[in-house]
């Protein structure tokens, strides 16, 4: 990287830092990784992510890679996928995995919670129609158990069915005979994972974390 470029990126970084909540140091680290993955290109493609060998054993490999190219995770109110992402988009996705700040109000916590759950929801909702249908849920569970061999595939469906019924019974309570549960909406999703403290669980440790700059929101 030349000197002029680093000045430019630094300015850019500040801008991104304000929006994603990462510290400059973290952004610097992530940028290094981004360059490494994209082989010094401006953009990152699916192949670049797929070439990470550590991901090979991850049953969710395809879903994770898809999440990076999902427009819903990049901008609000847009659906569909993109072919390549820039560094800023990469950070946007990564920002879903920032830990919560120390002192946050209840509203902020709730917002953070919704954000993180939305990310997971979007991973399940592959056709972006706002509901996780049984088929989508089954596929998700199947992927999850894809490393478990034949037993996994056999049971995955049963598990997804049981889980779906659980959602239906918790969210609808009693259903009329001619009523049908068409799929998990995001509200249902929030409800069913009410006791699942995702805001304190869905995060990773980014290097050189500066706790002071971490705020809720993008």
């Amino acid at each position, binding site marked *: 990287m030349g000197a002029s470029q680093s000045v430019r990126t630094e300015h850019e970084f500040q801008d991104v830092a304000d929006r994603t909540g990462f510290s400059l140091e973290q952004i610097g680290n992530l940028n290094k*990784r981004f360059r490494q*993955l994209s082989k010094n290109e401006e953009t990152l493609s699916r192949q670049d*992510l797929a070439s*990470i060998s*550590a*991901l090979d*054993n*991850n*049953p*969710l*490999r395809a879903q*994770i890679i898809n999440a*990076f190219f999902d427009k819903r995770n990049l901008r609000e109110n847009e659906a569909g996928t993109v072919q390549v992402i820039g560094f800023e988009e990469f950070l946007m996705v*990564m920002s879903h*995995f920032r*830990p*919560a700040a*120390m002192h946050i109000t209840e509203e902020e916590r709730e917002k953070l919670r919704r954000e993180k759950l939305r990310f*997971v929801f979007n991973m399940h909702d592959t056709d972006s129609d706002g509901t996780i*249908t*049984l*088929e989508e849920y*089954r596929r998700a569970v199947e992927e*999850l*158990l894809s490393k*478990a061999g*034949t*037993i996994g595939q*056999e049971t995955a*469906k*049963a*598990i997804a*069915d*049981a*889980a*779906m*019924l*659980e*959602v*239906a*019974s918790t969210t*609808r*309570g*009693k*259903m009329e*005979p*001619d009523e*049908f*549960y*068409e*799929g998990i909406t995001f509200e249902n999703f929030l409800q*069913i*994972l009410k006791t*699942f403290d995702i805001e304190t669980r*869905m*995060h*990773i*440790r*980014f*290097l050189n974390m500066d706790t002071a700059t971490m705020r809720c929101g993008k």
Partner: protein
Amino acid sequence: MSVRVALHSPTGSRSFLERGLLLLVMLIFLEGTVLTLGAASSPDISAQDNTGGGHDRRDDHRGIAGSHEHTNYTYTKKAFPVLSLDYHHIQVPFEISLWVLLASLMKLGFHLIPRLSSIVPESCLLIVVGLLVGGLIKLAGEEVPPVLDSNLFFLCLLPPIILDAGYFLPIRPFMENIGTILMFAVVGTLWNAFFVGGLLYAVCQIEGTYLSQVELLPCLLFGSIISAVDPVAVLAVFEEIHINELLHILVFGESLLNDAVTVVLYHLFEEYSGAGEVTPTDVILGVICFLIVSLGGIAVGAIYGILAAFTSRFTSHTRVIEPLFVFVYSYMAYLSAEMFHLSGIMALIACGAVMRPYVEANISHKSHTTVKYFLKMWSSVSETLIFIFLGVATVAGPHAWNWTFVSVTVILCLVSRVIGVVGLTFIINKFRIVKLTTKDQFIVAYGGLRGAIAFSLGYLLDKDLFPMRTMFLTAIITEIFFTVFVQGMTIKPLVDLLAVKKKQEAKRSINEEIHTQFLDHLLTGIEDICGHYGHHHWKDKLNRFNKKYIKKCLIAGERYKEPQLIAFYHKMEFKQAIELVESGGGVKLPSAMPSQVSMQNIQPKKLPPAVAERALPQFTKGREEEIRKILRSNLQKTRQRLRSYNRHTLVADPFEDGWNDFLLKKQRMIELEKKMTEMSNYLTVPAAPPDSPTMCRARLASGDDFKAEKAGAKVIPDPNAFYNIKASSDGVPTIQVDLASPQSPDSVNMLNEFSKRGATDQGLGQREGATRDEDQGLMMKLSSAGKEEKEEGGNKNPGLMRCLSDPGPSNEDEEDEPFLP
């Protein structure tokens, strides 16, 4: 904590003998050995066991044994005694039983008075009971027995509690917070010990306190005894306040892991308080000693844990003694660690935590329940006895009350705890992602209760080396009473007042389990993309290693392949099936069922027949499948029971419940039979292929199309206990269960059922495209069914097979390639 010092009891030699016997009998009791009391009282055995007691004890024993013989000789010429009283012969076991009975009755009593137990923690009430009992003994003019003897405490009362804690230790939160826990346990305890000990010494030097004879090292020794948070007291209080998991594991984990620090400090100071000076070399040796004591304890525990897991691999034919291995190996781990003066508590924790996942996969469901109940029973009796004994010991012990010393101790303990927690949290929070809030810090500091371990350690002190032992004991008791009574009683209102987050009472749902696993993999993936290896990455590595090698060695059969999610699902399924049987095997669903929806829709009571038929499509595939399984497993189990009853064997069948139970279940089966008749329509027909996503989706999404799908089969209740659910059309699964059949539970009938379903599936698979939008009743016409039947039979749904039989892994042999293309 280990018992290393020979006892120097203030009481006479008679109590030595008593204690020796008491100990021995308790040991036997704990080991589960069936030795007769006659053998127990033989002088040889007791002499072997009471090695610490010294010569006088053995001599006493011999003396009494000798006098017995002597008496026998003189009375030989008299008439044969028809009835004689020999209380002494049974005294020790009898008194032990009395104590245990008292403890159990007290425990029972408190729960009969709900209002009392909601205000005062049980531990406080038990101490009060102990005080009363001690007072009564004293009033009766008897000498109060030295009940809270260190040997008894460390060898008999403490291990069950710790094993219970270790075996059921929530590994996940424990490992996630291990850094914080270790910080509190090691650095926090060190800080407390030196702060309390040092300042106490300073206070003692003030003129006018009459304490100037107290030296620095005894003060530090006292500080190290008093500074450790006690697992028994913490468990007793925290179990009642239902605090959230994080805080619970922080305080409780600390109380478990500070054992090594306390052991080392205790011995270091005890060693040198006689010698005088402590050199820097001793400090270094102390640090090395700490590492050896803690890591050695963990290593010993882990070795025994692996041995236990390995042993349980081969117990599938002797199910009755399975639970024993868990207890004996753990106790051996504790004793072995004590033998080398390592941390016994850490050994027990490590042993329990290491063996649990493998043992649970190997042993039968009933054995697992046995383990659970025995551990809970032992630990709760031990806990009750410990608190009662604390009360009795308070009455018994000689006291030396010194206002300054006692009050300074109490204040210093509080102050050092608060400073320690706040200071350490300040450092820890820099590294933690989920920060500890001020409230959390307060609860951690306030939850630092002291208990019987401190008392027993104080009791161990040598009276000649420590002339102020009595004063120490009094101060320790006061501090215990202060923490247990004042802090223990106020912590609950304070938790409410501060609105500290409580524990989630709800059961873990399958959705949560899915997302726990999902999140694990997701975070590992994101870490990999970020390119640095955080703890998710290493955890993933470890899990894979565990799955690939360790599980293969330690878990019998094919079960080691099973991922956690599937294991969870099977467990849940199994529990539901059992609950359904217990509740009478009927229509009523237990609350744990995740799917009330479809059940409610098909309940005939609420809906007139016409509506009920309309509701049929609603009755989703999964649900239907579930009921089938449950009903089938009911039949299955009854048959097993019948079989094993005829054989009069217990070992062969862990489900054997005795004759009465059998009658009861039979009655239930009759009820079930009725219900089945009622429900037959819904149960037999839709014959849904278990693995067709199309079907299922269609059912969930567009059930209206299913009206055509009607009941085609009926249950014919047969008076000869012969269940025959016949299908009126081809391709509909048949359940044929002969209750009296001596055949193996999973044989022909089940396979028949599976094969037919498999055929159904195949049939559907072929016309999947065609049926998508059509009336799904199509699946009833199965033209291609018969052909594949033989090929596909037996390889369907291995999980279900396990679910129906004993969870032992033996019937996994039929797993083959997946059936669907």
